[in-house]
């Protein structure tokens, strides 16, 4: 407050003190200072800010002169706890003052439209930039896919070269047998099928025959280091590992193989190999039949069927083994059935195929020319969706985004379903 204001302030206070006595006497009813007081409804409407601007101006004029009404209005206002916005007007007053037409007029006022024009230009610029960047990103993505397509055969050839060296070292190790021969060993199935005394010898020979000299036998015994479910997961025919992609057997395994060779009776190798091939042919025949009946997606199911057949054979052969070891394996298998199956698949594949890619938070491994989601389970339903089809466009965008990153066949696990996109 400036000094001048202080002087006026003092004068106003003095003036108010002088007139206070007059107001007191007027309030006491001796000399009403004004006629036509506001009624209770008007006072309340003023106090609650429920008046139009014109009516409010009339009441303000009255209240400025009428001490009686002003005091009542003040009491009512304070009792009502009227909220006032920081911009200087109560919300009710602001609403009353601004009519709809006025607000429209203000909205389209030239001084505001000039900002709107700037805003529109800015929005257009942002939109154009967004579209341009998006196109560039799409071009980059397509370029990456093209590069990936070019790079994939190169990797495959490298693996084949590796296979060649591997097969030279182990000529009998049939790559198909190495994955197809280990039939899924479902412990429950093995338990449900009682061991047949007559088939015990056959089973033992079934084990012994492969162990003679072949890689199939080595595979069977190396399988024992894992759980039976792990082996079961390696069976699906849709994902045969590329030939010769298996890692070198560990020395411990070699030692066990030697022990087994010495312990097992000598059997002609061709017979065992023929037996193994019989199993494979049967499985392969079923697989081919399934392929003929249904699209290629059903290979998963046919692979499971093969696995079950082999499981039966294996369970028969295992019936000759000690009961305690089977039970122990059953327990361990039932504890982590699905997970270990996945791990078994992943482990087998990772051993066989180190090629791995990640896309959209999913990890994919290359199996038999197809990229397979490591989360895939044999129990999951498979949906085949061709690229560019209507169903493909209706798929979840994340699945489409993942599929767009692979040029060949890909199996994507999404919400408990397997989407096979050839």
């Amino acid at each position, binding site marked *: *407050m400036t*000094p*001048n*204001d*202080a*002087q*006026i*302030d*003092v*004068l*106003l*206070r003095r*003036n*108010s*003190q002088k*007139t*206070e*006595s007059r107001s*007191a*006497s007027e*309030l*006491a*009813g*001796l000399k009403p200072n004004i006629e036509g007081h506001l009624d*209770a*409804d*008007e*006072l*309340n*409407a003023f*106090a*609650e*800010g*429920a008046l*139009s601007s014109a*009516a409010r*101006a*009339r009441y*303000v*004029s009255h*209240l*400025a*002169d009428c001490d009686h009404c*002003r005091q*009542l209005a*003040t*009491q*009512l*206002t*304070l*009792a*009502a706890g*009227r909220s*006032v916005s*920081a911009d*200087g*007007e109560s919300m*009710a007053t602001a609403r009353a003052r601004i*009519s*709809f037409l006025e607000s429209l007029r203000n909205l389209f006022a030239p001084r505001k439209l000039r900002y709107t024009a700037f805003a529109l230009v800015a929005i257009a610029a942002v939109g154009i930039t967004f579209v341009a960047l998006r196109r560039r990103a799409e071009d980059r993505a397509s370029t990456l896919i093209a590069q990936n397509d070019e790079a994939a055969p190169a990797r495959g050839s490298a693996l084949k070269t590796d296979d060649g060296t591997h097969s030279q070292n182990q000529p009998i190790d049939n790559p198909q047998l190495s994955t197809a021969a280990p039939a899924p060993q479902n412990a429950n199935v093995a338990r449900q099928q009682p061991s047949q005394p007559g088939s015990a010898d056959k089973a033992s020979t079934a084990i012994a025959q492969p162990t003679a000299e072949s890689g199939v036998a080595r595979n069977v015994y190396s399988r024992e280091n894992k759980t039976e479910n792990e082996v079961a997961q390696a069976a699906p025919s849709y994902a045969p590992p590329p030939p010769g992609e298996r890692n070198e057997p560990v020395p411990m395994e070699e030692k066990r193989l030697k022990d087994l060779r010495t312990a097992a009776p000598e059997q002609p190798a061709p017979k065992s190999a023929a037996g193994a091939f019989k199993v494979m042919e049967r499985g392969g025949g079923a697989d081919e039949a399934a392929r003929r009946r249904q699209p290629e997606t059903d290979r998963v199911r046919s692979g499971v069927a093969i696995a079950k057949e082999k499981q039966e054979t294996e369970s028969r052969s295992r019936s000759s083994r000690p009961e305690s070891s089977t039970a122990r394996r059953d327990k361990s298998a039932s504890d982590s059935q699905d997970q270990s199956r996945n791990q078994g698949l992943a482990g087998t594949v990772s051993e066989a195929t180190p090629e791995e890619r990640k896309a959209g938070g999913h990890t994919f491994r290359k199996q038999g020319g197809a990229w397979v989601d490591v989360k895939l389970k044999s129990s999951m339903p498979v949906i085949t969706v061709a690229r560019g089809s209507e169903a493909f466009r209706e798929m979840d965008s994340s699945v489409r985004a993942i599929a767009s990153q692979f040029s060949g066949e890909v199996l994507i696990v999404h919400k408990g379903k397997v989407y096979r996109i050839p």
Partner: protein
Amino acid sequence: MSQREEQIDELVLGAAGRLLARAENARGLDTAPLTGRLRAAIEKYVLRDAPAATDTDINRFCDGLHADDLCLVIACETGDQSAWNDLVEGYNATVRSAARSASSNESMAEDLTQSIWAELHGLKVRNDGRPSGKLAFYSGAGSLGGWLRAVVGQLAIDQHRKQSRLLQPEEDAQIDRLSRNTHEPFAAFDALHATVSPEDALANNLAASDVETALARALRELGDEDRLLVKLYYFDDLRLREAGAVLGVHEATASRRLTRIQADVRAKVGRILAEEHGWTEAETTACLAAVAVNLQGDIEPLLTSSPESNLQSSQA
């Protein structure tokens, strides 16, 4: 009936239907008892100040009415006993609280409360056989609770006036004493002038009278909003926040407005003194400064509550 009247009647009818639809408890009313009340409210609050009000203005006013409160009041008027029970049950505490605020003791508050309910129900009977209570004056523009507080306040003042007439001689004496007491702070101002020579005292008194007259005239020339703010702040001793609430503005706005008013008043006082009494600007400045200095010691407490300090204290 003119075309405009017919239009307004149609608007009222539509507004009554919307009001009943808005009400959570319409109490079985139809539009008939509402239309008369709405028409009166529109005439009072809209058409009186803006005869050319648009349909939008009328509809906005009607849609801002307190639907449930108005239905309750009209149901009470039509003799709905359950509505009366709801009214008493819901608002007896409000009436009692307002009566306590307006009364000096509990017994008076109780008497006032009973009087209010009697006034609301109506002690007389109208031509149509219904009681003519104060409920007929409720328009729904404000809340029913606020309206009841206003009714209590007005009735308390009426009762005070009646009692004052009965005890007028004694009250007059009290008011005279009060008047003398209120002038006591300025006794020092008079004593100050009493120490000077009679000529100077006369001159000072004349100057003070001129300033006082000019000040009163400057206040009258203020706009209604400004005048109300001055009255609220200086005469009613409200804080800036409270004065701003009465005016519907924020206290910061009230503070800025008060500073502007002081400058305006000073300019007006200087102009009046110059035009009517031939004072120069220097004389006006010196006189106002002398008045301020002389009053400084006597009204120190008043000066400490300047607008800014009030604003700061209220913000703190």
